[in-house]
């Protein structure tokens, strides 16, 4: 493994009109690492993922992937470079079958041939492969969204609140899946409200509050940090 991080954000700022949603964000993630991203609603977690995946353009700062600036690249090119993401509200191709959803990403986003069945199996949808995505349950659509991301063979995966609405056994399965992805060398940024879930998969988190990085370190320390406590309590 190289010492250079896979992804590095340097002073990323994102504004919507006059509202600054991300202030000077700087952090990095290495291959095989899981980074948790936590913070109250509206603190900029989804925006961070949008900016890295190219869905939104940052106003200033640099985003380096393997040392290469990607900040102004179009979404599809960032995907082909090996960065992919799931959506907080899953965005499937609803009229296409689960298998076709995976096939789109395997066809356009991956450099090497992808085993579509293996991915359907991994996300627990092999038995539903022929069903239209729109007829799947919300939780299944979340898994399909993750599968679509996996089918591009990503080296960096951004996961936006996949845990919400899952039962404990589903959470256990997804935690195991995310850990196995990291063990394969994929870097993950996991946005999550369920701290207990996050605690199971990583000990490195960044806490955002109103678009600022309040804290970086382990979850246990985070809960004792005064800024973090204030942000969550609304101080």
């Amino acid at each position, binding site marked *: 493994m190289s010492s250079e991080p896979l992804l590095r954000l340097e002073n990323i700022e994102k504004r919507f009109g006059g509202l600054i949603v991300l202030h000077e964000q700087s952090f990095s993630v290495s291959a095989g690492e899981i980074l948790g991203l936590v913070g109250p609603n509206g603190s900029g977690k989804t925006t961070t993922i949008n900016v890295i995946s190219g869905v939104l353009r940052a106003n200033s700062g640099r985003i380096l992937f393997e040392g290469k600036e990607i900040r102004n690249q*179009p979404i599809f090119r960032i995907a082909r470079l090996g960065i992919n993401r799931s959506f907080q509200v899953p965005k499937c191709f609803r009229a296409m079958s689960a298998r076709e959803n995976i*096939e*789109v990403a395997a066809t356009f986003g991956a450099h090497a041939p992808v085993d579509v069945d293996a991915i359907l199996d991994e996300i627990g949808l092999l038995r539903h492969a022929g069903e239209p995505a729109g007829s799947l349950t919300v939780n299944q659509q979340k898994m399909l969204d993750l599968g679509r991301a996996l089918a591009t063979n990503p080296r960096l995966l951004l996961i936006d609140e996949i845990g919400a609405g899952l039962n404990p056994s589903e959470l256990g399965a997804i935690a195991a899946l995310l850990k196995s992805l990291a063990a394969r060398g994929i870097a993950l940024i996991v946005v999550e409200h369920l701290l207990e879930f996050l605690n199971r998969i990583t000990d490195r988190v960044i806490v955002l509050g109103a678009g600022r990085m309040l804290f970086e370190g382990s979850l246990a320390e985070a809960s004792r940090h005064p800024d973090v406590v204030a942000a969550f309590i609304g101080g």
Partner: protein
Amino acid sequence: MRNATGGTRYAVAVLATLAVAFVALPQVYGNQSVLFTMMTYMALAQGLNLVYGFTGYLPFGYVGFFGTGAYACSILVTFTGLPVLLCVIGGGLAALLIGLILGPLLRLSGAYFSIANLAASQIIYYVVSNEALKPLTGGPYGIKIDQVFAPTASYAAMLVVLLLTTALAAYFRLSRFGLGLRAMHQNPISAAVAGVNIVRARLVVWLVSATVAGLIGGVYAWNLSVFYPDAVFTLEISVFAIVFALFGGVGTVIGPLLGAGLLYTFYAAIGVSTPQYFQLLYGSLIVFLVLFLPNGLVSLLVRRKLHVL
């Protein structure tokens, strides 16, 4: 895709049926010009379907490409003496050029795109029909290329353009490129995240659709050989193409063909002799369509679990 070979066979069958039908029909039905116009509308509905059915962008000004092709072809015939088929291709290229110039319109969404495209077609119309351009386009007095008048050859050419357009629709349905189009149509952001170059895909479809309309216009001009600007720029042409395509079912290969074939037959049967009844029936039909068959005639086939290309 898994069904590619079955789909390809289906496409070949559709193309063969079209070819046989329009080769045979003049033997049993004497009015070749009605058949020619029917093919023109089938091709226009199919060409419009390429962009509307596969990307969701509704080009109200589609007639602009048709008129551009008609005029570019006629101007080439008048001033270059090139073989008429090359002039027709020139009509397609002129429409392609207009499509490139209008490419930035694709950044607009929904009604804004449609209205801007409509305005663009009207600008082309006013330029072409302007008195000042009389030496080139004939201005409001129209253009005449009767030195190349050839009803049978132009009939054959229109059939070829119709087959080409239909083959393109089949390609959009069945190919890898088409898989990306379907994804983009359903959710452009997800498609981009899945690796689809959505900006390029949309532009390619737009340019293909524009070029096809230019070719149709070129052959149409050749067939008429004398026409006024209104004849190839009237908005009625856009409206017919849209209604025919919707009536059959957009986003499919056979929908626009069925829609244009049936509605144009209907129009030829009663619309010319008793236009008032036609208007009435036509209006009722549109209302019926919107209320009961929003996905067109082909949805009746889909409901019966028949495979629709």
